[in-house]
């Protein structure tokens, strides 16, 4: 964390510039939405812009661009946990609950249930 007054004054300019850039990116996000891309393109564009904005907030406003290794360590674990959470939806497509399971013996067994 910088403590020198001159450093802080320099940072203030950066905060203002990043704030302005974030507002511009918000405008681009809304503007891009007017083009009615297909769903995959729209999702990709919106998430890329949101990730860029999020990175700016985290690195400049939250000072992550120059933090101590303990913070990075904690964040690494967080990212790992977050990625696990994001993969949970994939597992939901792998269950077989509600799906038809054919009987053993196939159609013949179904036609002659007594045998």
């Amino acid at each position, binding site marked *: 964390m910088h403590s020198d007054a001159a450093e802080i004054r320099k940072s203030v300019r950066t905060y203002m510039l990043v704030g302005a850039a974030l507002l511009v990116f918000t405008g681009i996000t809304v503007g891009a939405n007017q083009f009615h891309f297909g769903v995959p393109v729209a999702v990709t564009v919106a998430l890329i812009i949101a990730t860029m904005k999020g990175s700016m907030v985290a690195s400049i406003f939250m000072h992550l661009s120059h933090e101590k290794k303990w913070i990075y360590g904690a964040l690494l*674990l*967080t990212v790992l946990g977050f990625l696990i959470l994001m993969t949970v939806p994939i597992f939901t497509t792998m269950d077989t609950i509600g799906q038809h399971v054919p009987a053993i013996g196939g159609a013949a067994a179904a036609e002659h249930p007594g045998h």
Partner: protein
Amino acid sequence: MNIPYTVEERPDTGLTNGKLGIWLFLASEVMLFGALFSTYIILRTGAPEWPHGELNVVLGAINTVILISSSVTMVMAWASLKLKDWAKHRLYLIATFVLAGVFLVNKYFEYKDHFDKGETPAHSTFTAIYFTLTGLHGLHILGGMVVMLYFLGPGTKLWKKNPDQFTNRVEYTGLYWHFVDLVWIFLFPILYLL
């Protein structure tokens, strides 16, 4: 008894206890919102159709601008303390508090409009996840406002007693506030635009 390492950094971590504490808290917050984002993906990919254009994009965009502006004023409130400019700090902190209030007022009108149209959380899967995500985010805004109010009121006594500790506390509040802004940056496109 004095709380240790509020101003000076711990030799082993190189951080103040408060700084490490707030980051661990934010890590738990990522998990909380992450679980809900994951739920959103499951609900959306599993739904045969998903409503589009039901939310007021203009109001959502205005709220995004408000939160981004409040992040700038919050970081400026901290920077002013570093520059020992108390008057500017107060001005920026009040501005952040007001912007947070305006965000919630906008949200109130948005919610009221939905309820008037019968779009309660029980109306559809979309409204259920919409109210859950934005409601939880709104509660975080409210929590941040309570902390800011404390630093505008009784918390100011610490500035006279220990200015460095007060500055650090405002920094931790700022970290929380930027996180709340960051969550909204993702909520806005996934709920309002996609």
